[in-house]
């Protein structure tokens, strides 16, 4: 009897703790670099994902990205700051930023800042958090990248065409002469 009571008490404490953990709005934020290779002067796509795992709506959600400086990157599409009025419980939102690295180097992709109100009231508690941080990534020099990874089909086809005068023509001339006298030899054998 005493044991059953003790187990029931433990279960209630656990549930209470769980309720406390998921009560109100609670945002999980991610930051992903979608490119397999990061290349100088080529588009890099950064995707931010926000998921409300709480049981109430998150209000006045701000995403603030300060990782990318204008001296290092050209901004192609998207903004470094985003705002959502509300994110319902269980809802996802994504934000995308496309930029081009100006120089090649190892770059540290750090976390972006996320801020939101846990209640609708103006004086509701403000929560501040961070997205995941992708970490360090190698930005390739464009020439080096092309040298190692680009297929260069057109360049190889052109090279094969360029080989015709030095390889194809001598072979054709030799083969034509060879055939001419081999035919004579075959005719001789037949006779």
């Amino acid at each position, binding site marked *: 009897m005493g044991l059953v009571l003790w187990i029931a008490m433990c279960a209630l404490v656990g549930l209470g703790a769980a309720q406390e953990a998921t009560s109100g709005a609670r945002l999980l934020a991610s930051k992903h670099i979608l490119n397999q290779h990061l290349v100088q002067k080529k588009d890099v796509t950064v995707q931010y994902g926000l998921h409300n795992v709480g049981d109430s709506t998150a209000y006045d959600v701000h995403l603030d990205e300060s990782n990318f400086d204008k001296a290092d990157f050209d901004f192609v599409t998207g903004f470094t700051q985003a705002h959502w009025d509300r994110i319902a419980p269980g809802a996802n939102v994504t934000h995308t930023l496309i930029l081009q690295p100006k120089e090649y180097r190892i770059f540290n992709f750090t976390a972006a800042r996320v801020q939101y109100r846990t209640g609708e009231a103006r004086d509701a508690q403000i929560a501040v958090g961070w997205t995941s941080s992708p970490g360090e990534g190698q930005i390739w020099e464009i020439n080096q990248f092309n*040298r190692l990874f680009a297929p*260069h089909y057109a*360049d190889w086809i052109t090279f094969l065409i*360029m080989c015709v005068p*030095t390889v194809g023509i001598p072979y054709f001339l*030799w083969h034509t002469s060879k055939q001419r006298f081999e035919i*004579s*030899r075959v005719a001789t054998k037949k006779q």
Partner: protein
Amino acid sequence: MVFVLAGKMSKKGGSKLTQEEELLLQDFSRHVSVRSSALFYGSGGLAALTPIWLFWRIHHMDLSVYWLAYILVSAASAWLIAFAYKNTKFGLKHRIAQKREEGIAREINKQLQDDKKVTKKEKDERILWKKNEIADYEATTYSLFYNNLLYLFGTVVLSFVILRTANPLMNYGLSSLGSAGLVALLSTGTK
């Protein structure tokens, strides 16, 4: 046979060779005419210039930056390739002459069968002359084809497989000169 002819020459004490002897000597001679020499250096130069396209387009070695390396390496490679042409041609010419003898004799006999004025000696000389001409032509064209193919293939394998990650300048120098050197070395073989 060359030594026998040389012996005859010394006995005659500087008297002129017959046309037949001259043709036979040509058959075995390593001498390359000015025209053939120009063809060899021209073709060797063209073959040595062809890989520049790959190094410019794929390895991103700009012509404006690496022009001196391109000139020096191409000139050295062209010389080595031309050396290989001469050796390969010399090795092939006599073998081709032996193989084509029957076909050429048959063709000449066919051409002259109605001409009663032509003596047997004249006919033999014509066959010998034609055989020398055809052997020279086929040996030259085959030598160009074989050495160019070997050089270009060697350059591509060295540059894009073995030295793929090497510094572009070193890659170019070693690939082109290495391949041309290999072609020259193989041409010195007795078989």
